């Protein structure tokens, strides 16, 4: 019995439990070593690396078009946006002119990706809080986007639709109609999300004032994306450094000042409306033209360093390429938003209950493969 007690309680008289790597609410193989005093979280220590695949190392031995397929596997919910980041970096390095058609299609696809990612966030967040019904409503609508992806890209989640210089193939003739149908449908069903969860008293009680992140901490910890914007950190790359067709659409950057779980959630809910606005502005204005610019068969970047930022559904993704003039990059670094957002978990979940740890972890919307890379 003495032995057993020693295992349970550490030297600070804290009860240590392992959340994960196989735990329903860590959304993947994240392991959190949580020290508890009763139900109160005293320390959270993330242990990561369970799906570390060494993507950065693998990139050093493959060509640029091949890298794109690895980026899908990082943040699999923002697959298209990750692809775009690498393509933009390569295109910027080669100073390729990209026609409007490609830019607009990329933007539409990026926004669809963002919507489906936020839908999955909503679905799983409801489930983390114990409302299992949310999961089915979220996935019901997400299927519609995945069907559009399937038709145009041939794949549902890991789309690999971009290639340096454009797109892999042209959009399906049905694409515009289906996207318009979806927008019409989703404008009707998105208010259901608010009815089911946002307005719920229990939900508000569970999330408001839980896991408050101040603006200073958000900037210092580099928390970007919806999580950062909920703290008032204006960090939307689409606004500050527009890429693709974001400079020609009107949309609002959603920011709040509270920085608690509820507002992190609310940013995502409002972003879905903004994304639909962006798509509506672009969907009827896709010009005719080629879907890809002819590139050299072997892409070699001139010697130098290139940095490209894009806004994924979770924050700022940076692609840092160092080239030595060969067909393989010399070094590729992905600044993954989830890796950085994870660092704030210990700070904001201290002195909350263990149930709040799940709430806070869910509201950061972590995707583990992107943390491990």
């Amino acid at each position, binding site marked *: 019995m003495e032995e057993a007690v020693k295992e349970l309680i550490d030297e600070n008289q804290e009860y240590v439990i392992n959340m994960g790597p196989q735990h329903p609410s860590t959304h993947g193989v994240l392991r959190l070593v949580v020290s508890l005093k009763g139900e109160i979280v005293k320390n959270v220590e993330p242990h990561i*690396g369970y799906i570390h695949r060494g993507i950065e190392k693998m990139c050093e031995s493959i060509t640029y078009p091949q890298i794109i397929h690895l980026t899908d596997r990082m943040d699999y919910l923002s697959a298209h946006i990750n692809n775009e980041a690498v393509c933009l970096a390569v295109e910027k390095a080669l100073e390729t002119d990209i026609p409007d058609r490609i830019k607009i299609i990329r933007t539409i696809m990026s926004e669809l990706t963002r919507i489906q990612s936020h839908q999955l966030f909503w679905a799983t967040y409801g489930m983390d809080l114990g409302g299992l019904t949310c999961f089915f409503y979220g996935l019901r609508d997400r299927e519609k986007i995945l069907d559009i992806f399937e038709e145009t890209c041939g794949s549902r989640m890991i789309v690999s639709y971009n290639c340096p210089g454009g797109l892999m193939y042209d959009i399906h003739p049905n694409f515009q109609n289906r996207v318009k149908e979806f927008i019409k449908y989703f404008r009707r069903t998105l208010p259901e999300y608010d009815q089911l969860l946002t307005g719920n008293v229990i939900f508000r009680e569970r999330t408001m004032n839980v896991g408050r992140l101040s603006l200073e901490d958000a*900037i210092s*910890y580099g928390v970007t994306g919806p999580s950062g914007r909920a703290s008032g950190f204006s960090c939307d790359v689409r606004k500050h450094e527009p890429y693709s067709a974001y400079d020609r659409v009107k949309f609002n950057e959603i920011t709040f000042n509270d920085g608690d779980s509820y507002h992190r959630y609310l940013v995502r809910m409002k972003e879905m409306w903004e994304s639909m606005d962006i798509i509506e502005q672009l969907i009827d204005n896709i010009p005719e033209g080629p879907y890809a610019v002819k590139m050299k068969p072997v892409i070699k970047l001139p010697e*130098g360093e290139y*940095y490209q930022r894009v806004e994924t559904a979770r924050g700022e993704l940076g692609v840092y390429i*160092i080239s030595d003039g060969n067909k393989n990059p010399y*070094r590729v*670094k992905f600044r993954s938003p989830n890796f950085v957002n994870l660092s704030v978990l210990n700070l904001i979940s201290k002195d909350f209950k263990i149930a709040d740890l799940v709430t806070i972890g869910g509201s950061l919307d972590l995707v583990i493969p992107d943390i491990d890379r």
Partner: protein
Amino acid sequence: MEKAQLIELVKSLCSDAEVTEGRQFVEAVVPVKDLHSVAEQLKTDPETAFDFLFCLSGVDYGKELGVVYHVRSTKLGHSIVLKIRFQDRDNPVADSVTDIWLTAEYHEREVYDLLGIKFRNHPDLRRFFLPASAGYPLRKDFVDDENIVVKK
């Protein structure tokens, strides 16, 4: 702040720095020992106010190892790249910038894990992704017979 002004400023902060205007950012190669003071002044000076370290990467340049800091100011909107280089491949040690930008804690752990660069005054410098027995895989001289097949 304009790029030219920034170059002048960094040069005045550290006379040994090699500052160039790169394709995208102002790039400053700073001696390892001066990095912490330069970074601190860049952050605290209200004219530069570099408060957001958005990327920290470790690079193996072949003969030497290096760390690259991408920093931006959220108020003023300008960016700078700070670089340090280590001649000593066996025991590279730099000062941690965790006290300046808190996000550096995880980034530095990652760099330590994958490249073996140590950071002085880091609060919790342990391996992050890999077990202790693994080497430093992002180094160019890393050998792994099992997983890496070198094409002849």
